[in-house]
Every structure is written in C-alpha cells, then in structure tokens.
C-alpha cells in the first residue's frame, strides 16, 4: 500500500464521556451553534446491580465506500486527502441527499451557510503539519488515536492488530475507517 489512508480509533475502555472532544471540535472548527461534528454515545446493558456501560466518542466514519459521496448530485461530497470524506461548501446546494444516505447520522446543514457540515478528520491540521485532530489533542484520557491505516507500523494499525476492535454498522457496506477498541 502506498497512499495514505487516514483512520481513527477510539478506546472505549478509557473514554469517560466527558465530551471535551465535542467542545474542542466546536471551537477548532467554528461549528455552528447547536450542532456538533462529534458526539458521545453511551449504552447501558444489564439491570441493577449487574450493569455494563459502553461509551463511545463518535463522528463521521470517513467510509471507503461512502454512500454520501455516491449520492451527492453535485460532487460537493468527495474523497479528499488520505481518503477522507470532505464537502466543498461552494458546490453544496443543501439538497440533503447525503444526510438521508449516511447511516451514521454524521451530517447536518450549517444554518449559517445552508450547506453540509460534518467531521473533516481535521485535514486542515493533519495535512498542514499538526499531527493531531482537535478532538484527539484535547482528550484528557488520550482515548482518541488518529493516523494512517495503510501504514502497518502506525499507532492506529498496531492498536487494531493488538486489541479487539469493531466498527459501527459493519454490514452497511460502507467500509468505515473509524474503529472502537473494546
């Protein structure tokens, strides 16, 4: 493999659902009031007192077979650097076809522009000399890992080899590049 393939790995064992990643993303990316590009999902199973809780920090999965890209009539949604999924604001008409197509509910209309917004994997940082995404950088538990999935030596690749991991809706045929460590 040669081309860079950016991916993200979140450790559900250490994430505490504090949402620092949500706040940091909002200020880093000037996300519209009332919206966010990442969010926290918690699921509790069992009943008192035998309970388990899983916590995940989630965002756009930057799928390799992204339904939002294939459905976009204008080419605004496209594959960008490192195989990330990006949206070109000037080409987006706000038709919302991609919102309907995304099985992860990662997209929303920025009311200030009328066009789609979502996680960019912080390409403005990672392609510009800052190796971390904003959510990764802030995380007090260091639960977010970001890097090149195509490089078997990268931290994300090693984690996926060493630990049990899963992706969301693996059967949706989207080939997500966002993984969660058990």
């Amino acid at each position, binding site marked *: 493999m040669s081309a860079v393939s950016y991916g993200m790995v979140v450790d559900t*064992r*250490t994430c*505490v*659902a*504090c*949402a*620092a990643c*949500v*706040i*940091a993303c*909002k*200020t*880093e*990316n*000037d996300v519209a*009031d*009332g*919206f*966010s590009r990442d*969010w*926290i*999902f918690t699921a*509790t199973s*069992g*009943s*008192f*007192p035998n*309970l*388990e*809780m899983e*916590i995940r920090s*989630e965002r756009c999965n930057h799928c390799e077979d992204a339904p939002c890209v294939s459905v976009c009539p204008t*080419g*605004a949604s*496209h594959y*960008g*650097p490192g195989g990330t999924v*990006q949206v*070109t*604001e000037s*080409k987006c008409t706000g038709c919302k076809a991609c919102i309907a197509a995304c099985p992860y*509910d*990662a997209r*929303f209309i*920025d009311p*200030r*522009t009328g066009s789609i917004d979502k996680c*960019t994997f912080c*390409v*403005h940082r990672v392609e*510009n000399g800052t190796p971390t995404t904003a959510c990764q*950088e*802030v*995380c*007090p*538990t*260091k*639960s977010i890992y970001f890097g090149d999935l195509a490089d078997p030596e990268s931290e994300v690749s090693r984690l996926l080899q060493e630990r049990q991991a899963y992706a969301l809706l693996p059967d949706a045929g989207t080939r997500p590049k966002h993984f969660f460590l058990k």
Partner: protein
Amino acid sequence: MKRRQFIRVGSYGAAGAAVAGGLTTDWYGRYGNPIADPGTDGDRVVPSFCELCFWKCGILAHVKDGRVTKIKGNPKDPLSNGHLCPRGAGGTGLLYDPDRLKKPMIRRDERGSQVFEEVSWDAALNEVGENFERIKAEHGAGALALFSHGYGGSWMKHLFKAYGSPNIAAPSYAQCRGPREVGFDLTFGSGIGSPENTDIRNARCLVLIGSHLGENMHNTQVQDFADAIRNGADIITVDPRHSVAASKSRWWLPIKPGTDTALLLAWMNVIIGEGLYDREYIETYAYGFEQLAEHVKAFTPEWAYPRTGIEPDVIRRTARAMGAARPATLVHPGRHVTWYGDDTQRSRAIAILNALLGSWGRKGGFFVPSHLSIPPYEYPGYLPHDDQAADRPAPSDFPLADQVLAQGVCDATIPGVVGDSRIKAWMVYGSNLPTTLPDPENTFKAIQELDFLVTVDVLPAEIVGWSDVVLPEATYLERCDELYAPWWREPYVAVRQEVVPPMYDSKPGWWIARELGSRIGLPEFFPWKDSEEYAKTRLEAAGLDCDVMREDGVIVGKPGPLYFEEGALPEFYTDSGKIELYSPRLAALGFDPMPTYDHSALEEPPEGYYRLLFGRAPVHTFGRTTNNRLLSEVYRENEVWVNRDVARRWGLEDGERVFLQNQDGKRSSFSAPVKVTGRIRPDAVYVVHGYGRRAPKLRFVHGKGIDDNELITRYKVDPIMGGTGMNVNFVTFLRADAEEVA
C-alpha cells in the same frame, strides 16, 4: 438519531462564534476541491491557566482579530499536559456569555428586588469604601466578613487581612473538602490539599468511594485514571450510583448510602485479620496498631453486610485485591466529602486503611509533593488583631476546624443564632452562597439582617441580586492574577496572563482590591503598579526568568524524590511523629480515637421518599458554568435519576417532568425530567448540582432543572471540624402538572 439525542439545539445570540465568511481561507487546491481551513488558529497565542474549575490547568488561548477563538491545553504545564477537560476547552462560553455583569451597580430598591442603577466605578467603590469604614468604626473590623471562592479571591483576602477581619471564609472548606483535610492530618500529619497528591497513574489497585472521576473532571486525575485503566489496575468503586468510574471498574459496590464507614471498618478487619497489611511499614511508621487490631475485631464482613448491603464474600475479595497490590493500592480520599456529619471519622478510616496498605509516600499510593518557593512581594505586615472568628459559639466548638466555617459566619449574621451576631456586612467574591451553603432560606434570612452586602462576580448569580453594590469582575481570560505554585509531582509556577483586555466595564480583582484599599486608608498594602508588576517582582526575587514565564506560562523545577523508596523523607507531623492509627489527639478532645460506626444514627427515608444525592456532570462546575451556552450544548438541564423499579411503582416515564419535595415539605422551584435507569439504587435519587437557578438575569439557565440545595433544609454538622453533611435529606416526586395544585 444518536447525535441529536446528545446535542440539543441551543441558541447563543450575541455570543455566537466567528462568522463563516471572511475568516475562512481555502488552503490549497491540490485536490481539485479546496478544503476550508476554519481559521481558528490565533495570530497570538497566550499561555495562562484555567478557572472554569479550581484545578488550574495550563492553557494556550488563541486570539485572532482580538477575539479568543479557542483554548488548548499547554503541553508544558504539569497539570494539563496539553489536554483539557470540556470546561477548560469551553472557556470562551464564559468570556462571551451575553449575561455577564457589565457595569458596577448600586441597589435602588429594597434588597433582593433586583432594582439596580448602573454607576461609575468611582461611585461604586466610594460606596463600598464608606461602608467598610463605617462598619469598622461602629462595630469593629470583625463585623465585616468575606466569602471567597476562586483564585482571584487572593486579592480580597489580602484586603481583609489588612483591614483586620478574621472572618474570611470559603465554602470549599466546611461544605466540601474540610473533613478530608482534618482526617488525613490527624492520621499522617498532613492534609491532602489541592491538587491531590494521589498517585493514581501508578496505582495497581484503585479504590474510589463516592468519588466519581470521569464525571468529576479534575483534569490530571482523569488523565491518571485513564493511565490506571490502561495499566490494568484493579478498580473498586463504592457508590450508590453506577457512575462512569463504576463502569470502568472490576468491582462496583452499590453501597447503601451513609454506611461507608462500616465497609471501611470491615475491610480493616479482613486486612488485619488475614495479615494482608504492610507489617514492616506499620512497625516502622505507625502508632496504635494493637489498639486498632483490637478495635476492628468486631467489625467482620458479616457484621457489615446487613448495614452496607455488600456481601461478606465481596468485602473479603476486594480486601484481598487491595492487599495483593499494596503498597500500590490507593484508597482515594475523595474531594467533596461533606455527606453525613461523621465525615472526618470516615476520612480517618480511609486514611487508616491507606496506612495499613502502606500506600502513603509510596508509588501507586500517595506521592510526596514538592513546590517552588517564591518570595512574597514586600508590603507592611498585617496589623495585629486578637479578634476571634465569629463562626462558632465558643472556641471549643469544632476544635479541629482550622479554617473559618462559612455556614457559621452566615449564622453569626442572624441575631440569636451564634452568640451576639457580630457580623454586619459581607463581601462575597465568586461564591454564590444561596446555592452553596445548605438551607438557603437561612442564608436569605442572614442577608436580610445585613447592613451592607457587596459582591464581586462575573455573572449575575443569585447572590448578586441580593447585593447592595455589585462589582463586575473581569473573567480569568481578561486578568493577571497571583502566581500559582502548588505542591505537586514536580515543583512549578504558573502565571495567569491577560489574554484579551477586560470587556465592558469589568475590572480585574487586583485592581478592585487596590482601589478599595486606597479608599479605606490602606494604600500601603498595595504598593504594586499592577498585578503584572507584582508577579514580575516575585518571579525576579525567586531568580526566575520573566520572559520564559511570559512565553511558556509555566516554569518547572527539578522534581525531588516522590516516594519513600526513592529517598523522600518519611516525616509525619503528628504529635507522636508517627502515623496515628489511634489518635491521642481525638481521645483528648473526647472524640473516638479510632473510627466507629453507629448504624442507629442513620436515618431511613420515610415511605415514598428517597435519599437525595447530588454530584457533577463532566461539562459543568456546578452553578458556575451552567449558564455557559457552549458547554450547555452538551448538557443543558439536570435530570432526576430514578431507579427503574421505583419509576415503575410511581408510573414515571423516562423524560417526564417532576418536582421534588423534601421531608420538610420544601418543594423545588422548578421541575426536571426523570431519567429512568438501572444505574442507581432504589433508595436514592440523584441530580447534578448547579441547576434550578432562580436568578432571572442568568437568562440561559434560569428555570432549568432542579436545585438540590433548595431541598437541603437539613444538614448534620461534623462535631470535630464543623463540616456540613448534606446527604441527609429525603425527597418524593410531584408530577409537573401538580404545579397548579401546590
């Protein structure tokens, strides 16, 4: 679906962040489709330290076109290590809160009516100065009390010491950490302090008792907690609620509220009985082991079981896990520990358990902190005064209280409660007493008795509405404060710098204190030009480079040995010079020299009532941040956690709004949605503290959720140090449509 459940749509009005157009730049067209840089990198980056809570993490504030765009962790700072909690990352929500106090104000109608006139600083300060001088002339300096919370309060404390009042109180003592400090001091000869000297990151067994790391977001502790998880530490969480920490634990012990000391005694019983304790450590450093061994003999796991609800087998197995990992077993001392009025003794039990495990001064237990000594700025010594604080009826009451009791000062304002009601006037700095001191009706009663009340604050909290004069302070991003050189893993000093100039007509605390000082004849106590010159002078006197400080925000010294095994000195500043398992000091004062547990003192909830417990959400520092619109996008209203079976019995649906009413018939002012969950015991309910706000000018949070403090009409005072145990109230549900009925 998921995101929309978590992030609710909020509106932010004038506080809205930068505009979409203009600031965005298309940064290279390599991919045909240009990608917009959000353009939030500052053209200036200013290091400082955070004040969204009191942990004081080092930050880097990005400023672009005069606006703070984002706040990052300062990688050089030993507390943040480059990471922040959500509150720290959301500091701009405070800076740009449209509800901020903007101008000095003087009350123009009866107290509490919230009718104010905006005035000049000169007029406001003259009014305050005249009242301070009058109070001193008529009643003596001790008639003026200060309540303070937050780092900027140091300037006001200095002003009060110069003025000559002994009544300087902080609710962070008797309403929060006090019992822990006294309990550990009695045992090891030193308290825990803040930041805590807990070596969480190296613990191989971590025991959390009602301490919810992960919801309580003291940044470094949470960072270390994650390290402990990664290292595979055995985690034991004791909590009536399945906290986030409990979900990370190998053991969750859903204890019956109020019975923690019984569990701690049973653990000691097993640890001593099975020889799991650190014999050599105890023989070398401890005093009173024989008495303790004898004392805990009766407290078997079988004895504890009916009291705590924790099965004997679980008590034994967790005790063995603690013993197996010692001395890297940390029984965390907690932080907010004023629960049941026996809190010093419970903290003592925690300290003794740590001593048995040999964890004090050991890796994975409690490290030995060091600190940088910075010479003071030269100013005249405070004038001597022999006035006693007015916070307790007799000096022999609460004999081990080593700080002024905030509720005592409040009581001493009401005629007939504490002796002769010597307090006539208050200054309140950054501490919203009606949501902080228990029994707010009592606080309002005291306020009505005052001759004069001045508040210094950033937001129009409840206490502001009751004031005679309101002084709007600049936020932490707009001011330079006292240097911060805590006792920590490595000695260091951090500086708080002005990131942007104060907005509106707000002023920094140092300036307010100095201006008041000059109006009441104490100018010689404020010889500095400004806080920057003050900080610079101190740094230079310590031989530190001010330019490095300005650039880096911190200067870190050489760490000393952290553990006894590395050469740290095992010094115990108790009377015996040893770790006092048996406390002769407590015995001499007529208290139990070793912790006991009295089950008959534990009140049961009346039929249909549930014990009211309160805590924290990770994005909030109680009421200080609940008006922060940015943070509130993640958590904007508290919920009442109700056990699933209880909810079924009441027919309560998830999300249905209820009012709470306590055992004394006190009903919450507002309602909150029910969270039906398996994550809490059936005998308790839980809310996040800081909601149900009544201050109308907190336009965002006003009326949202339930204020637990309103329902804390009863509290149990710790006889040893005067802490107010507040988990002793019971509540029942009123459906929200009962509003008209009641």
